[in-house]
Every structure is written in C-alpha cells, then in structure tokens.
C-alpha cells in the first residue's frame, strides 16, 4: 500500500495509535459512533478501524443525507419531475439514488428534464432563464447545506421570481442522535461529532447528549490525525467517567457556530413535527419545512404530490446498519445484489454511505500501518 507515503503525518498517527492502546481499558469495550459520512469515508479510506485495539469499535452513523432519504420522498420528487414542462434540478449525488420508480437518471431516460446543479443558486438562475417553465430544486442535506437553500429562497423572494420551487428534504442532526440514544437496541458509548455541520450550529446544541444521556461527543476534523485525536479525547473522558462536549476541530468550528447561517435558517424554515428517515423510521422534529412566508416557493404546497412512504426492500438491512446494530457485510445483499453500480439501499450510493465505503475499500488493508 502506497497510501502511507501520501500521508504526511505518519509519525503522529503512530504516536496517537499507541496512546489509544494505552488508554483503552482491556476490561471494557468502547463503541463510538461517527455521525458524519465524511468521517466514515475517511475511516474506511485510511483503514483506521484496523489500527485501533479490538475493544474499540467504530460505528458508522446516519450522517449522509442521501443515505437517509426515504424512497417515498424520491418518488414524490420524481412524480413532480414528470409534470409537463417542469425542469428538475438536484445535486449530482442524487442522480443515482433509487426510489421505487427508479432514479432521477431513469426518469431522464423516460423523457423528464433532469439537470444537475452544484449550487441552489444555479437552480434559481435556471428558473430566471426559463421564465415560462416551473423549475424545481430537490433540496437535501443537513445543517451544512440548509443555510444555502435558505439564502437562495430569500434571494428568490427579493427578485420576485414566480417559477422557482424547492422540494425541501433538509434534515437535522441532533433529533437523529436523540432517536438513536432513545432506541431500545442502543449500544453507543460516545460520538465523534460532525465537522461541517458544526461550523453552522456550533457545539452548544450537542449539550443534551452529555447532560441527558451522559455520553461524550467530540467535534472532529477529517484527517486521520483529527479522528484519532478525537478518539483519544473520548477515551480520556470515558476513563475519567465524565461526559462532555469537546471541540477538536477548533480551526473551523466555534462554540456558537455561524450566526448569519442560523439566522437564515430561522427566517426560512420551521421544523416538521416528524419526518421519515430511511432505515430509522419517523423521527420527531428532525427536518425542516418551508415557512408560510415563503410558501409560494414550497413545492409540497404549490406542486403537491401525495405524501407516501415505502418500506425498504425486505432483505435490506439498512436500518440495522444505520443504527450500528449490524455491519454492512452482515447484510445478505451486500456486494451481491447490492453494489455501488446498482444500489438497493442508499447506503451503497455515495462514498459517504457505510456500505459503499466498505465495498470500495474492502481490500484496503491498513493504510497507516507501520
């Protein structure tokens, strides 16, 4: 493996991994969930699980927005796409996400006008260049992405655009963590907190995890040294029997987050009383809806399709994998029926999903080995 040479901080990695081995108490286990898909990708890419002692298990959480979108929402979006003359815009990652009626790419093959955009602002611009046609933006993402949709809607209002619609699928990270902590098969000891979500929300909103559930959370950067450093911080807390919210990623994340972004979120969105998460079911207060003041842009109100929800295919174990009860390889569809080229579950779609990351790097032995 040549990756070691690519990675500049090899020495630091080994020092940290030795420190982790010393800190890990042989008489107990440490089950640590990384919430963010970016961390999942990094962990698999560098084989970090393999350099940890056997009693530290990393569990891959629900922090990939594409992975938790239920099939029914994709179906609704695609039903809108099949409206006469409508232009459907979405980020590239959405193009291969399966609904029960196929993916956006399948809809495009059937004649729908499906276009990939890199920014919600470009979806708005598409509307301004096609004034005679409705333009839909399929909005998805956690608190990292939601402020950009909010600002785009504020601009649409300022400009008086009338043919732009947003299908809002933005979800919130903390209600999902709460749902995991409250679930019956909960076996998590601590969390590695999301890096980029936290640039927006800061660290304060995680306090309930320590206060109500006595679990440590450390907001972490994405490099191997960051993740290992965060694990050191978690082990120190657990060994001392304390639970605190700590910030390892201070170079990008402040305690209070980004005020302008939070203001935009508050202005445009309200929380839904409940929202379906793929594999996890309905979670209270876990998603944003567009406020009445911006209702003219709300695709659910203006284009409206019936809300439906479909269970995942019977053999798919996406829910168990998301909750950390099962590993990707324990799903009977893994690598046989369900592959990145033809995903059954959304965890196989993007490199931030646990199944795709596992599939892609399954032959990668430890990258950072001495």
């Amino acid at each position, binding site marked *: 493996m040549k*990756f070691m040479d*690519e*990675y*500049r901080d090899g020495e630091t990695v080994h020092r940290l991994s030795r420190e982790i081995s010393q800190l890990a108490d042989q008489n107990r286990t440490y089950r640590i969930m990384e919430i*963010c*898909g*970016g961390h999942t*990708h*990094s962990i698999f*890419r*560098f084989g970090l699980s393999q350099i940890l002692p056997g009693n530290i298990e990393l569990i891959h959480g629900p922090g*990939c*927005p*594409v992975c938790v979108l239920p099939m029914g929402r994709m179906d609704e979006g695609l039903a809108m796409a099949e409206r006469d003359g409508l232009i459907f*815009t979405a*980020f*590239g*990652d*959405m*193009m291969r996400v399966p609904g029960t009626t196929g993916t*956006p*790419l399948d809809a*495009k093959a059937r004649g729908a*006008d*499906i*276009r*990939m*955009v*890199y*920014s*919600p*602002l*470009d*979806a708005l*611009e*598409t509307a301004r*260049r096609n004034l005679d046609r409705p333009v839909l933006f399929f909005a*998805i*993402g956690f608190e*990292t*992405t939601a*402020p*950009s949709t909010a*600002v785009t809607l504020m601009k649409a209002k300022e400009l008086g655009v009338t043919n732009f619609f947003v299908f809002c699928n933005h979800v919130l990270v903390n209600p999902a963590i709460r749902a995991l902590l409250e679930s019956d098969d909960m076996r998590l000891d601590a969390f590695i907190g999301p890096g*980029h979500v936290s*640039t*927006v929300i800061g660290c304060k909103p995680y306090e309930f995890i320590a206060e109500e559930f006595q679990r440590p959370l450390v907001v972490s950067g*994405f*490099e191997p040294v960051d993740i290992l450093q965060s694990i050191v911080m978690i082990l120190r807390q657990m060994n001392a029997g304390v639970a605190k919210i700590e910030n390892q990623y201070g*170079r*990008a994340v402040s305690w209070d987050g*980004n*005020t*302008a*972004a939070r203001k*935009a979120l508050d202005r445009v969105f309200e929380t839904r009383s409940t929202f379906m998460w793929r594999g996890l079911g309905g979670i209270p207060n876990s998603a944003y809806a567009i406020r009445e003041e911006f209702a003219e842009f709300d695709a659910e109100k203006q284009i409206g399709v019936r809300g439906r929800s479909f269970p995942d295919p019977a053999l798919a174990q996406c829910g168990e994998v998301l909750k950390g009860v099962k590993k990707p390889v324990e799903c009977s569809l893994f690598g046989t029926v369900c592959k990145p080229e033809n995903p059954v579950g959304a965890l196989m779609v993007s*490199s*931030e999903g646990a199944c795709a990351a596992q599939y892609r790097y399954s032959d990668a032995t430890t990258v950072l080995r001495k």
Partner: protein
Amino acid sequence: MCLAIPGRVEAIEARTQTASVDVLGIRRKVSIDLLVDEGLSVGDWVLIHVGFAMSKISAEHAEEQLRILASLDEINEAQAEAEGYGQPPNSGNSR
C-alpha cells in the same frame, strides 16, 4: 455534495454579497451571505460548500483541506463542483 472546498478570496462585491474566489486554480463567484459578520477581505481563505462560503479559515487549514480531498480521491469531484458554480445547465447534463 458534502464537499467543503477551500478557496482564496480575490475580490469582493459588497452590493451582491458575492466574492470572486480562486478554487483549485479556477476563478468563480461564490455567495458570501453567510459570512456577513466575518469582515471578509481579499486574500482570506474560506471553506466553500455548494457555492457558499461557509467559514473563514487559515491558509494552513486550506492546505490541509486540499490534502484530505486528495487523499479521499475527491479532488476531481471538487474541481468539477468548482467549475460548475455559476454555470446553470441549459439542458439535462446529469452525469
């Protein structure tokens, strides 16, 4: 979509709340609406996500972010994303 790409501010247009940013050698306009409180100036580095500058970062952090994108094999994706900003598709171009 979850990429955060570092870019260097080359020019600021206060009226439209946009900045011209050098992202991986590509010059693009991004929104700075989310950094109104940060007192952004030319030469600053920012982390960009879906066409929006999200946070002001140091030059070292920018370099580190580029390194992590490269080691996660996401640098091409980041480049495609940066190139895509401000280029609304004229017809279905999904890949």
